[in-house]
């Protein structure tokens, strides 16, 4: 009842801070939240981000397993749905070409293999772009209520993309063996290139995810952009041999897709330098992406969760 009794509440024991701490609380870890940024310290930030990745691997694994579990649990055909869309797309183009409605000239090997390779790779790329935002949205109900390492969402999302890509890779192998198409000499390098294609998509996805969580425009916009992008990339058609290098540079997916196909068939690697450039770029783009992701998180939470 006594107002004076509220010592520990108003103006609280700040002055007691150092005079006699209990032994128990002596070494307790301390965290201070303030508005003022403490100055840009790239090294510290990177250390924090990597520690968060390491500390959260258990959570990431759980989320990854959960996502795999729930994806097809309420379906009868299960994982068939993972491969149905690209197969359908491939079948359409194969049909169109067989009826001479589109004209695509492929040397040395069947068009069906060409288009299935393209469609499966393309699907992995698009999945990678959409994954970070999808993961953030799936956590929307608790992201503003529980303080957990949010990079785990990225790890889990990336794991899912890689997992699905491996399945697609296996489908590809099945198609190759069924059609009797032979692999090229350096086909074992394909997983590396496949990985950098995914990485490229994922790095882009991370960069757009913070704004995407705020504005639904990003999600809607990405649907249109990837749709148009599909047609601007040699997924179901082949580029003419004397194409202007400018177009190869313009669309980073193009050199990656072409290089992967060339490796699969043992063709000459025409755009290897462009491919290397973009895969290095995507590796470096991960860094700013992660920094933006991390720094923007409190602001996202504030705006998303009222």
């Amino acid at each position, binding site marked *: 009842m006594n107002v004076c009794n509220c010592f520990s509440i108003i103006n609280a*024991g700040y002055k007691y801070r150092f005079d006699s701490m209990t032994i128990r609380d002596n070494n*307790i870890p301390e965290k201070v939240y303030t508005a003022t940024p403490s100055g840009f310290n790239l090294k510290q930030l990177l250390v924090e981000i990597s520690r968060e990745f390491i500390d959260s691997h258990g959570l990431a694994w759980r989320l990854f397993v959960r996502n795999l579990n729930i994806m097809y649990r309420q379906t009868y055909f299960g994982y068939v749905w993972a491969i149905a869309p690209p197969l359908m797309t491939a079948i359409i183009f194969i049909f169109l070409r067989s009826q001479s409605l589109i004209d695509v000239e492929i040397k040395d090997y069947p068009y069906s293999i060409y288009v299935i390779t393209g469609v499966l790779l393309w699907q992995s790329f698009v999945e990678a772009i959409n994954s970070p935002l999808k993961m953030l949205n799936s956590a929307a109900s608790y992201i503003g209520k529980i303080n957990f390492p949010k990079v785990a969402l990225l790890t889990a999302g990336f794991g899912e993309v890689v997992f699905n890509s491996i399945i697609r890779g296996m489908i590809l192998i099945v198609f190759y063996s069924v059609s009797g198409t032979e692999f090229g000499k350096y086909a074992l390098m394909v997983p590396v290139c496949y990985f950098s294609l995914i990485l490229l998509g994922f790095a882009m996805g991370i960069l757009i995810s913070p704004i995407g969580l705020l504005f639904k425009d990003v999600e809607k916009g990405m649907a249109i952009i990837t749709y148009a992008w599909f047609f601007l990339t040699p997924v179901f058609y082949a580029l003419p041999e004397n194409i202007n290098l400018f177009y190869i540079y313009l669309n980073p997916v193009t050199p990656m897709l072409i290089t992967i196909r060339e490796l699969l068939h043992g063709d000459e690697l025409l755009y290897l330098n462009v491919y290397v450039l973009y895969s290095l770029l995507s590796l470096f783009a991960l860094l700013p992406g992660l920094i933006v992701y991390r720094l923007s998180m409190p*602001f996202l939470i504030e*705006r998303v969760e009222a």
Partner: protein
Amino acid sequence: MAADRVGSIPLLEVKNVSKKYCRSLRRSLIYGCYDILDAVRYKNANREYLRKDEFWSLSDINFTVQRGEVLAVLGRNGAGKTSLLKLINGLLNPDKGEITVRGSVGALIALGAGFNPVLSGRENVYVNAAILGFTKKETDANYDEIVSFSELEEFMNSPVKNYSSGMRMRLGFAIASQIKPDILLLDEVFSVGDISFRRKCIKKLEEIKKDVAVLFVSHNLRLAEELCDQAIYLEKGRIKYAGDVDYVNGKYLEDINHDNRFSDVALNREGTGEIRFTGIVAHGAISGSNRLTLTGEDLIIEAGYEVFKEMENIKFRVGIEDTRSGVVITMANVHAKHVGKAGKVVCTFNNICLRPGVYSINLGVTDGRFGLDIWRFAAEVVVSGARNEDVQFSIADSDLVYLPHQIQVVE
């Protein structure tokens, strides 16, 4: 009480903390983009002053909590309680001031976060525990305790979508209660399950409270008195009262009691205007305090009206709405063949069976076709506790209502 702890350092220190919010959604999102840009550039340009449509949702908050102390955070809806917890939990950054947190923070806030309806209870325990920061090993070790605490032994292998909402909450609580933090944040969590489960939770809190610093947000003043030592009362983002929990509770009740102003007439009001309500008084029958009543007590509502155009056959309505869920709990109707120039509608709800919480009184008058005056949120009524101990212990916050009953064991 805290005299013996003067020497120890507080686990939680909140110093001059302020936080802004934006009223307009689209503008809020745009500001969010600016803020992210600022954060990436390590600038701090927009933090200290208010931009258009912004207001201070918390302003100049100061307090500390020691180990072993339970601090109640009281205040009406929108006073800033939840924002405060989010700041302490590190989910949001303050716009001004500084929060020092020593040790780990655990929050019993979003119970059952990330529960997926198609996964089994067991699978969900592991996911939820991982989100709360448990390793697989820890969850394995705690699993049996979680299951027995939630009392859901037979249901662990069925999908969570078959659970009732109470069962989900119980499971969520059971997982979350495994955390052994230094600072524990509780936001209206004792609204879980039935009485026995609720008692169990309270017992659990009593058990651990000597080892942690607890922040407790609740509308249930009785429970706050029972569990807490200290309290702060927030009003419009500021600490209005702070101190001993009895003192703050008293002040809080006094405030509500003296709040005789009619609520903002312009807002939440529709209708053609032939008849207008002029004011409203709502009070408990026994306590007689304005805007305040107890579960099991009569609630009397008086609403004055003025008539601008003579009307026949009109209908008055007095409704009670749960401010949290927006559910209209009851609606009392009365016909009037003829109304004069002015008058009042008097409505008595007998032995109201509302659980403790904040309710709004809605008024309406219609001629059968048009709303003449529809006044939502005409007054706010606080059900601050129960009429007596028996009633107090048989209501859980998750109950919809309290129904008067006789219950006995016959042998």
